[in-house]
């Protein structure tokens, strides 16, 4: 059953990092580099915590670093990528520092204490084995069950993830099942060893909306029945809107906003979140102009002197470019990486309607590594002459390399205490 975020109060208190209940997962000051020898930082200073039974949404467009963050947690970074700094602690009975694990040690964590599902379930299954066999295998290896015990537990699990006729499903091969059914099989495998945390990386992106809603409901149910903590990684703000207690918004490698879902959606504290929300709501509402976010994201790892959103931000001013922007406490439990105080914006240069007409050809950054969906540029064809509105464009590159190297207080009204940065 889908539950409105308000009903998830206990989890929210646990999220306060220093509360009485220790978090299931704490990521602190994570930096991830990509690109082999000429390494650049694709993830900067990412810190997050997930409390027991809590559902946290990690939202960002492709190239924002959200997937690298979640793959760092799972210890499955693609070749050429590496954790350069920071710690990732899986708490619980046996606290483990994940960045220090040997491949052998990972075997007792991944699939056991950490479960994961991804966008394309078929590619994580062996096409020549029945799905039941693959789940049983996981149960026998991971939980030491006998062949018969594993079989009956597998059938129970298939039923628990909402597969009809679990006994018959057991004997099916992956190609005989639909995408939604395969995702349920993957979820059954992911929770087989009763992990503390389940990570879903774009797990519902490829599914039809009806099935997507069913899978999201299933995750909520597993969470309330089994106390499973959830990290939902997605590009779609709407997907987390109703299923997560808290959301974290990533942009250009950094977490730019964090807070309880309902509060963030009601009054975003970071201009990027605000823009994302506006873009999503104008399309849904079907009234008025369809909004876009002018410009494109900076190239992965680009070193910029100040705020990484400045080039596209309607509120940007000199202070934003003066130095790296640290996170600011908006209110208890809410943080934003922005110098602008929350509340009424001052000196806003573009109103909502004008945001759709800013052309910024210099902001195009087709990335050589992954041109497909990276850095999509959003200049508007009908732009009149918006360049005057965007003085920051063009003078934000070639900066010194100090961005993101810690809790600098430059330009930050309210420096965060050590250890509780976003």
């Amino acid at each position, binding site marked *: 059953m889908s539950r409105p975020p308000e009903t998830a109060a206990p989890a929210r208190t646990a999220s306060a990092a220093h509360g009485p209940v220790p978090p299931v997962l704490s990521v602190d000051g994570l930096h991830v580099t990509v690109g082999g020898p000429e390494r650049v930082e694709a993830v900067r200073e990412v810190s997050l915590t997930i409390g027991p039974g809590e559902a946290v949404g990690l939202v960002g467009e492709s190239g924002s670093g959200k997937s690298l963050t979640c793959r760092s947690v799972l210890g499955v970074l693609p070749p050429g990528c590496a954790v350069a700094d920071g710690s990732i602690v899986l708490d619980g009975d046996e606290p483990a520092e994940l960045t220090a694990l040997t491949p052998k040690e990972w075997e007792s964590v991944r699939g056991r204490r950490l479960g994961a599902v991804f966008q394309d379930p078929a590619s994580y299954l062996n096409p020549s084995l029945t799905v039941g066999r693959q789940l049983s295998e996981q149960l026998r290896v991971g939980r030491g069950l006998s062949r018969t015990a594993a079989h009956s537990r597998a059938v129970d699990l298939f039923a628990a993830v909402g597969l009809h006729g679990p006994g018959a499903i057991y004997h099916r091969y992956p190609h005989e099942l639909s995408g939604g059914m395969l995702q349920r099989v993957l979820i059954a495998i992911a929770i087989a060893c009763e992990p503390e945390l389940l990570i879903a990386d774009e797990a519902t992106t490829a599914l039809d909306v009806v099935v997507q*809603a069913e899978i999201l409901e299933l995750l909520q149910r597993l969470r309330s029945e089994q106390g499973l903590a959830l990290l939902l990684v997605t590009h779609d703000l709407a997907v987390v*809107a109703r299923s997560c207690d808290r959301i974290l918004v990533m942009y250009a490698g950094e977490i730019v906003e964090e807070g309880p879902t309902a509060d963030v959606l009601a009054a975003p504290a970071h201009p990027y979140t605000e823009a994302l929300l506006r873009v999503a709501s104008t399309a849904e509402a079907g009234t008025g102009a369809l909004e876009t976010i002018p410009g494109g994201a900076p190239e992965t790892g680009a070193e910029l002197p100040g705020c990484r959103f400045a080039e596209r931000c309607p509120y940007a001013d000199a202070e934003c470019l003066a130095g790296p922007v640290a996170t600011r406490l908006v209110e208890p439990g809410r943080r934003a990486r922005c110098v602008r105080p929350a509340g009424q914006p001052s000196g806003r240069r573009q109103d909502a309607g004008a945001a759709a007409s800013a052309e910024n050809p210099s902001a195009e950054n087709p990335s050589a590594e992954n*041109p497909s969906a*990276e850095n*999509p540029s959003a*200049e*508007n*064809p009908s732009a009149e002459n918006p360049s005057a509105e965007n003085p920051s464009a063009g003078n934000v590159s070639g900066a010194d390399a100090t961005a993101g190297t810690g809790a600098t207080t430059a330009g930050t009204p309210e420096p965060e205490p050590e250890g509780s940065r976003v």
Partner: protein
Amino acid sequence: MTTVSEVPPGTGESPTDATTRQQRQEPLLRVEGLSVSYGRRATARRREGSTRVLSGVDLAVRPGEIVGIIGETGSGKTTLARAVVGLKRPDAGRIAFDGRDLTRLAGRGLRAFRRSGQLQYMFQDPLRSLDPESTVRQTVAEPLAVAGTLTRDEREERVTEALTLVGLDAGELGARTPGLISGGQRQRVALARALVTRPRLLLTDEPVSALDASNRNLVLSLLDRLRRELGLAVVVISHDLGSLAGIADRVAVLYRGRLVEQGRTADVLERPRHPYTALLTASAPSVRREPRLLPALLRVPASREPWPEDEGCVFAPRCRFAAPECRDEPAATVVDEPDPSGTDTDTGTATGTERATVACHRAADWRAELG
């Protein structure tokens, strides 16, 4: 909007003109009773071996109108587009374009119609279908080479015109290959390629599903402008209600080859008449915070006896409200629409002349069961 008014076909018409003209005009495309099968062709004696993917579909699209077709995987939405553009022969039904039945065209007539480029189809996933070796200009010019009637200079002019229409700088991007432009730009190159023949009807299959929200809105507003300023008729096929809500005048909902509901976008999405549409709209993720139906209320309880497949209403196996009468397949029936003159102010573009239909025996009373 200067870029568009330079272009011949739409000659400076205001949106209001376009709206009235659109209401006056006969549909440019009229699909009637369209049925399509795959597999062995059905004969008078034998039907087995073929799978009916579309059955009795009716649809009309006027100049300047955007019609959305919503359906999930396997709904037949792509087959519908392929049949309309002549890539798939229908078993039955009529596809009239500007009064001419396309299903009867053959040989020279068919080739001539295709060459004219009046009807263009933008394939699903054009991001991947662009030739990585061709420059943007070469890619966009391709449909003109098929037509083969223009001089070299005319072709170059048309390419520049099409690129300008979609808001791309021909001078800056024309010589690049797809690998050197962004995803959003590539989507617009694909659109320019479809527009270069100055079509009157454009069919697009999932034009925005590969894009992020900002670029999605950009491409959608582009389509919206093209229909307003050029009177282009547009069919947008999508699984995503959100990408249709913003621009479509009318939507048609396909489920397993049947058109289960159609009507004005706001009516269909806000107050669906068919249980399947209701399930779709309830399931769509949303950032809006108003209360709405929970999808769980619309699903079949696990305790119910499975509905025999292939009996009666196509949606019955998944319909919470299935009743004995649903063993007969429901026909699409016209329903009363609210008076368009009173309720249209929000969109200003709905035609009001097209009837809404729904194919459900219980369209009038299923809501009562929700309590």
